[in-house]
């Protein structure tokens, strides 16, 4: 059907930034699944392993909520497998189309982020693998520390351009 909208990456056409002090890049719009329920992280990790999603990352996203993220797009079969691997009372919502990931890294990344968010980003308070939902300016973002100087931001798709351009302007 020609009138169906074709999926276009939200940040297609936005320039990546790569300098010695800071790097900014839009990540592939693979999968981003929200999992909610009275369960634990280990159970969610076991379920994604059972569904063959070893490369996916599980991130805390609030009380009893997690995001499962990865670069690959998932088939509906894999989604069904994952849904059935989750325990009863735990639910999955596919947010791949609705949220966009942005990577920010480099020695100045922490300083740049701290201009927009109130979360304490010191290594001791926000170590590798830790996630937080917070505001960057007026935009709600999910922030994860991936490495000592590398962060990933998850933002609602319609706010992705605004956030990216703001980060780009601050970083340049």
């Amino acid at each position, binding site marked *: 059907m020609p009138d169906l909208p074709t999926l276009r990456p939200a940040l297609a056409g936005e320039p990546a930034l790569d300098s010695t002090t800071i790097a900014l890049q839009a990540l592939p719009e693979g999968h981003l699944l929200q999992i909610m329920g009275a369960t634990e992280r280990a159970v969610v990790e076991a379920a994604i392993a059972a569904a063959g999603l070893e490369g996916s990352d599980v991130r805390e996203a*609030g*009380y009893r909520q997690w995001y499962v993220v990865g670069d690959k797009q998932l088939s509906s079969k894999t989604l069904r497998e994952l849904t059935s691997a989750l325990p009863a009372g735990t639910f999955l919502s596919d947010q791949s189309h609705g949220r966009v990931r942005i990577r920010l890294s480099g020695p100045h990344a922490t300083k740049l982020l701290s201009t927009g968010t*109130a*979360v*304490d980003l010191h290594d001791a308070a926000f170590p590798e693998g830790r996630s*937080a*939902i*917070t505001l960057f300016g007026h935009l709600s973002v999910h922030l994860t520390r991936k490495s000592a100087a590398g962060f990933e931001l998850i933002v609602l798709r319609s706010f992705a351009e605004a956030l990216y351009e703001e980060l780009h302007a601050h970083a340049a």
Partner: protein
Amino acid sequence: MASLITCPHCGQRPKEEFTIKGDAGLARPAPDAGADVWYDYVYLRDNPKGLHKEYWHHSSGCRRWLIVERDTVTHKVHSVSDAALAKLGGAA
């Protein structure tokens, strides 16, 4: 106004991340309680001096409803708990 709230799920966050609903001590009247009682419940609020319990929603964080007990005179926050978990009797 208290400017830093320690969310039981997210840690210390600024008040900009929250939405305040108001008095957490209100009891919903019975459906047939009468217009005066309902008017009171819907529109009339105390303006307490001192300790006050309020519902705060961590709208730009974990999206949980919290009960914040704060002092309206000193702006000190005395306790923050998860409203749903407190109702269930569990600790946040």
